[in-house]
């Protein structure tokens, strides 16, 4: 489904590579945790996958399509197949919880009826049914992240990329967010999780890719968080 083929990424004004000759494959329905120290290249992988960044060398394929050779219009369609969740939530501050989710549906051209039907349902799913009219600034960290997840899954994407989604959360909220991601994965959506959180990774008992200095040093089917 996703195939990184010898990908190297060098940023301008930096001699070191953020990623160096990285190759791996992710299959449909997998739950993959990408772990490593800060600067190991975890976020670079997610940015490359969303075509926010371009690789210096190598290619990235989604099914059989090289995503960095897609025209702009096709890129929009690709992004609609990928739901994103970030550490800093990245919610639209001027929109209510309901409108944040509705925006993702509106952007994909869904009708008003579909929006009216699906948004309350997904808000209930992440336990924010009573906070539909709240703005992000009126929500706690955990609620913001649950809202971000709701927005990511509303369009029923093929893949969810969660980039350090628990970085700003306490243990209870962390566990809530991970449980929601597991549920989404159980329903068949591929989940790519980058994290620093050892206990989260160890409890998941799913595939773990470990990065160090831009290189993959470990890729295990039921891995653990092992970083020296």
């Amino acid at each position: 489904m996703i195939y990184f083929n010898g990908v190297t990424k060098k940023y301008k004004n930096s001699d070191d590579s953020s990623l160096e000759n990285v190759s791996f494959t992710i299959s449909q329905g997998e739950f993959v945790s990408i772990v490593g120290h800060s600067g190991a290249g975890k976020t670079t992988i997610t940015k490359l996958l969303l075509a926010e960044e371009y690789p210096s060398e190598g290619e990235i394929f989604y099914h059989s399509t090289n995503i960095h050779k897609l025209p702009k219009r096709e890129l929009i369609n690709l992004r609609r197949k990928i739901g994103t969740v970030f550490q800093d939530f990245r919610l639209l501050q001027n929109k209510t919880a309901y409108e944040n989710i509705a925006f993702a549906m509106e952007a994909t051209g869904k009708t008003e009826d579909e929006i009216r039907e699906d948004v309350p349902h997904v808000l209930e799913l992440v336990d924010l049914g009573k906070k539909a009219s709240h703005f992000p600034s009126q929500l706690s960290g955990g609620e913001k992240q649950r809202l971000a997840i709701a927005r990511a899954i509303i369009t029923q994407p093929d893949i969810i990329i969660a980039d350090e989604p628990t970085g700003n959360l306490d243990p209870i909220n962390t566990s809530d967010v991970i449980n929601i991601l597991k549920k989404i994965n159980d329903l068949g959506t591929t989940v790519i999780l980058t994290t620093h959180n050892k206990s989260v990774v160890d409890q998941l008992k799913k595939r773990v890719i470990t990065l160090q200095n831009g290189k993959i040093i470990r890729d295990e089917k039921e891995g653990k968080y092992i970083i020296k």
Partner: protein
Amino acid sequence: MFTLYLKRIIRSGYHNFVRSGFASFASILMLTITLSVITSLVFIQAALNASLNDIKEKVDVTVYFVPDTDESDIAQVKEALLQIPEVRDISYTSSEQAIEDFKSKHSNDYLTLQALDELDENPLGASLEIRAKDPSQYESISNYFENDSTLSQGALTIIDKVDYHQNKVIIDRLNSIISGANKLGFFVSIILILISIIITFNTIKIIIYMSKDEINVMKLVGAGNRYVQGPFIVSGVLVGLCASVITIILFIPISVWLGNQMTEFIGINMFDYYKSNFVQLFVIVICLGVILGGISSSFAVSKYLKK
């Protein structure tokens, strides 16, 4: 589908505008200042034109006729002169009126009045005051008396003098002042308008810069460029509309005050001018506000859509 998108873009733009609070307020303030500068320049131009017209009114070419010329001969000359395309109007002063005017003008000068009384007959002839459509045309009108064949030889003999050459220096100077004032006014207006537009554009650019993360998020959830840009343009247009209405309202008390206090100085009642040109000014200010707000936002957002 298009109407659905349009409806959503307008709704989203309206929400952005209402919920942005301070950002919308700052944009409206800047755009109000720009529109006020432009409206003030329109006012200044009107005042300048009024003053120049006033001065133009005071300039004429006077044709003096020899005393005892028949009124019918003068009427013939007047008719002939009215055929000249450059002539706007001609007023006639009879020799009786001329002597009356002279007496009232010198009512305190007993010596002159006494000398006048000594004379048996009226020494002043009748005259025609010719006003041209434009001050630059006086020369060609005065040349008419010197070499134009449409005036009969008889008509030329009854003309005592044409005072154009005495006024030539003043008329030439006035011409250069008028054209200079027009050019300078235009140049200064353009510079001021450009400065205001650049300031407005930059304010809106800074405000949209604050939304650059949101623009990225919109793109990440799969929104197309037009769907991201649309609401910002709608907000910009709403900012423009508000600023235009505020400017229009703001200039009501200003023009009333100018009308009450400054009419003598300016030479035109600004409130009357505002009232009589209200529709045109309203349309100009609204269009400028909407275009400036919309285009500034559109340019500012497009910078973040290139990736």
